[in-house]
């Protein structure tokens, strides 16, 4: 067994762990970061940027948002089922954190953006090649890692932590890990920060803690390695646990790695029905992936079918889609027909094509009469107005011309949320709400601020929470270590 010494050990190298590492190192701590994978960034390497409120980007772009307005909106949305002190501290610091990322860490931002029209422009997109691109989170994470290393932190890759060690007085005193050669590594330290990013890749824990069945009624991203290790280790070390949830959205489970035109076209606000053949949502809300995910998971079989006809498809292929967002924004969808045919040829169960509504219903397992009735009713409303859910008339396009296309959307999630109880300083609390000495946690393992549904109206929330609570944890751990030494 190898042994190492450090002031602070951080478990997990996503944005929360990296921010915690960077912050603690900046505060003069000797920090060791234990990462399971070969790459820093974790799930956030698929993300685009963190939330910020009151930033230079926002004032440059004349965005009207401040901490008070955002806070009020947030507690309204969550009905105060949240840790209001933590939310307030997070929002209050989020602007300074963007500045820190930009000026101190070296992250370039393309600006502050909305995800969809009803949301606020809190999303600070990390610049890719100087502009808006995908997965800028990966670039931010690299900068954080480099900044942490410049400040003396050590990052150990392929070295998963196994256990948090405590001394006779109940204070955290080290972490046991295993390195890539299978050798045990014990890092002795004074404080531990848990930041392992939840349990998205642990179907048993998801079932036990949220009730969702992976690949039954939940098709979350199972980012390899997100096993809920940190939640388990923290609980073993005395942490109280919190209810866990998923960060709901909706997804075509088998089409994410295919051409972007398929999700882009089927996420347009046309006709969406459930297994009974009935509409269940104002399709404009399909832009709000949380709301639409909630609505789908509420349906029979947890499935929603998005249906278009070939006139709509042709129009999209020729002129582009009606609405775009930051994730799905193809330049054009001219390859839609070809992509659908290829998907069907490759046995992709997400996509279906048929010459009649009856045949489409049969392929989707819906009662043909029910679907025909719904389509007739919908088409009639296209000529007047949507008297059922009041959709904007400009998105009311009749489903008339064969062939017809449908896609089967299922509830998805980026991962899990919550599990470890912390206070607004990222101190881990026990069942009596007393801090576990030397134990801190941040990021998704602790994120229960959203109440029942992900707060999509202030985009960038998850990564913003991670980076900011990561910094709180880094600060608190450094203060704790300094106090021990005094």
């Amino acid at each position, binding site marked *: 067994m190898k042994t190492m010494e450090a002031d602070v050990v951080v478990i997990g190298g996503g944005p929360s762990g990296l921010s915690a590492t960077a912050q603690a190192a900046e505060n003069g701590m000797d920090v060791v970061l234990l990462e*399971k*994978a*070969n*790459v*820093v*960034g*974790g799930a956030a*390497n*698929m993300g685009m940027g963190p939330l910020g409120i009151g930033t230079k980007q926002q004032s440059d772009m004349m965005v009207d948002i401040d901490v008070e307005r955002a806070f009020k909106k947030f507690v309204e949305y969550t009905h105060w089922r949240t840790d209001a002190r933590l939310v307030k501290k997070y929002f209050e610091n989020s602007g300074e954190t963007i500045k820190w990322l930009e000026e101190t860490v070296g992250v370039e931002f393309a600006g502050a953006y909305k995800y969809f029209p009803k949301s606020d422009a809190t999303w600070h997109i990390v610049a*890719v*090649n100087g502009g808006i*691109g*995908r*997965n*800028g989170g*990966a*670039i931010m*994470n*690299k900068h954080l*890692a480099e900044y942490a*290393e410049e400040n003396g932190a050590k*990052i150990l*890759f392929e070295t998963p932590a196994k256990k948090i060690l405590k001394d006779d007085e109940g204070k955290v005193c080290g972490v046991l890990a*295993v390195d*890539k*050669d*299978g050798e045990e590594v014990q890092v002795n330290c004074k404080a531990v920060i848990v930041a392992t990013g939840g349990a998205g890749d642990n179907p048993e824990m998801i079932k036990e803690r949220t009730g969702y069945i992976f690949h039954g009624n939940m098709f979350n*991203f*199972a*980012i*390899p*390695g997100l096993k809920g290790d940190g939640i388990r280790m923290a609980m073993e070390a005395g942490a109280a646990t919190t209810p866990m949830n998923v960060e709901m959205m909706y997804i075509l*489970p088998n089409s*994410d*790695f*295919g*051409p*972007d035109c398929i999700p882009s076209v089927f996420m347009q606000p046309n006709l969406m029905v459930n297994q009974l053949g009935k509409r269940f949502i104002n399709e404009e809300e399909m832009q709000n992936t949380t709301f639409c995910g909630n609505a789908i998971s509420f349906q029979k079989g947890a499935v929603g079918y998005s249906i278009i006809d070939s006139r709509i498809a042709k129009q999209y292929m020729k002129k582009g889609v009606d609405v775009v967002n930051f994730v799905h924004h193809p*330049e054009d969808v001219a390859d839609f027909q070809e*992509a659908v045919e*290829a998907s069907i*040829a*490759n*046995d992709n169960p997400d996509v279906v094509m048929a010459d009649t509504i009856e045949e489409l219903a049969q392929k989707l397992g819906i009662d043909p009469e029910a679907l025909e009735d719904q389509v007739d009713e919908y088409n009639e409303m296209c000529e007047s107005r949507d008297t059922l859910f009041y959709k904007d008339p400009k998105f009311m396009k009749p489903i008339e011309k064969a062939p017809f296309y449908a896609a089967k959307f299922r509830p998805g999630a980026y991962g899990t949320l919550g599990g470890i109880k912390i206070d607004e300083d990222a101190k881990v609390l026990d069942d009596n709400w007393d801090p576990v000495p030397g134990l801190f946690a941040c990021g998704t393992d602790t994120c229960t601020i959203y109440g029942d549904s992900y707060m999509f109206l202030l985009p960038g929330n998850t990564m913003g929470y991670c980076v900011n609570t990561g910094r709180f944890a880094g600060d608190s751990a450094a203060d704790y270590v300094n106090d021990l030494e005094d």
Partner: protein
Amino acid sequence: MANVNLIIDGKQISAPEGQTILNAALDNGIYIPHLCSHENLHPTGSCRMCVVEQQGVEGVVTSCITKVQEGMVINTKGETAEAIRKLSCDFMFKTHPAECTGCPKFGKCQLQSLSQYVGDTGRKLKANTISVKADETNPIILHEMYRCILCGRCVRVCEEVRGVGAIKFEKVDGRERVVIDGDSLKDANCRFCTACVEVCPTGSIREHKELAEKLIGKTREEGFVPCRYGCPAHIDVPRYIRFIKEGNYPAASAVVREKVPFPHSLGYICVHNCEMECKHQELNEAISIRNLKRYAVEHDDDSWKANTFHKSPTGKKAAIIGGGPTGLTAAYYLAKLGHSVTVFDAGEKLGGQLRYGIPGYRLPREVLDREIEEILAAGDITVKTQTRIENAPKLLEEGYDVVFVALGTHSGSKLPMKGNDLKGVQVNAAFLREFEEGCASVGKKVVVLGGGNVAIDCAGAAKRLGAEEIHMACLEAYDAMTASDEERAWALEEGVVLHNKKTFLEILDDGNGNVDGVKIQGIKSFYFDENRKSHLELEEGSEEVLPADTVIFAVGQRPEISMDPADFGLELTHGNYIATHGDSGETSVPGVFAAGDAVTGTQSVIKGIAFAREAVIAMDRYLGGDGDIEEKLAPDQVRDPHIGVIEGFGDLKREEPIVVPVPERIVNYKTCGPMDQGFDDERAAREARRCLQCDLRCDLAPQKFWGDYAKSGEEA
């Protein structure tokens, strides 16, 4: 070779002549992104990630194919170079999915890491994804070629390094793709070495999910070579199979001897955990590892003896209670370590279960005797047979410095049921001991109760003693029986009738105190709960009677010691098993160690040997030694990575051993030799060729990421 001097990123560097700029930079802790380049492959310079700027040269140079030259000034971070890298990255993402969601390689993907490093997460150019289905139809290897970025590492490793060429580049519908050179990997004569999996930078070529899951938490050596890891003693299986293939049988035998002192006996009777882990099962059947081992040992020339270690006498005395495989393994290594060893055994002869539990028609006694003789010649070993030790710690008082308890489980048990004391009821351990001693007898109709290997041996022995009708009944379903497939098949060949999923209600009395039959009943399910308590659900109305004059209980064995811990002097557990702490076999009394069946319950010879080795290490340290019992008995082996093509490799069938047929092996069991005759030369040669050589993968360089280089640079 001479060195040349050059400057990279302002750093003065001295690099061997002929080295590429890329390798010179990496060796000096300067990371240059690269993808198509791989340590085991010839560079092709195709991915353009490793371009750098050279003073005095227009544009960029490709650092993986350009050699260092005296006086070169290289800038790895120039604007043009970085712009080209970003563009190259964009080109890779033209075919690769834009989203990482759902990719099992997330976090371990070189493309992901690289795009993070160059600061271009791709997706600037219009995507042009490869529309091709996931192919899960091949054994071991999974293709999801819609993730392929055409770096060609898989094609090159298969062709250049392995000399197989099972995959190739081909234009399909006008698009360049990596495809199988045939209808399937088997058809393409793939050797299933998984080199392609090892070098693939993305999630395109991987192991099947279940195989990939087995790698989690293991080192490369452990994960890639499952047979060696599966063997409790970690015998280096692929190494000795390779020696057999090369015709060097003494070397092969020496490899086995590096870990076990009973190689020949194991060649007959090992339960071969290695074969249960063998990846060849994904193609058809496991390699017949045990028979290959036996063949090698049968062709040994004792040349290993020249390399074996013998340490000088330490003056320490070790007592070993039990002369079975576990005790004798400990005796062997302790004596080689220079300790003076005394082996106590209650039986007439040494060998334990090898002699008194496994019938002679399966393990010839001359083989066993010769191996025991060899062990006893290893050093200062005194044998005291027919000596039962009543109290282990007492030996410490008698002057022994350490005591090793390896009593085994020689006491069979009867189930508590009506009729279990009738005349004609026997118990496995005693029955097999009597069979060995030549004084066992059975009637005409025998019922064996139990479904393990010992039960099969009881049935086989009964058959050879003249029983006409033999029935075996057990709780387990056919597939859940603990007896090995092979032994079960042999028993069926010999006419034993199996009754699976039965519980035993009572043994019937003929009215004169003799066994008349066994009443059994079908069960729907049975399981043990967390307290090891069994739960049965019976099938209504399924009672039946198996007529019998002899009943043999084969339902487990226990150590032959008292349940009262005060008697034997050690803390006990689960009744009368010896309690130990950790892997080293420490008992409740310092200086007394224990291992084998008396600790774990009846297991296997190979486990007993493996545990004995662990205990020896601990005992030697306890006695002041270094605990080092590793030895290299075989000569060096060159693992040739170039395995070439074998026509029809994937469908080569497992070789079956030569087995003496029924009734010859029954009627003449005393004279026909062992029933299992093992392999002849042809069978051994054919079988050794089937090995997938999983260990070759360990020789391929592990994939590195920018974080790895940053660190190694720091250390340098």
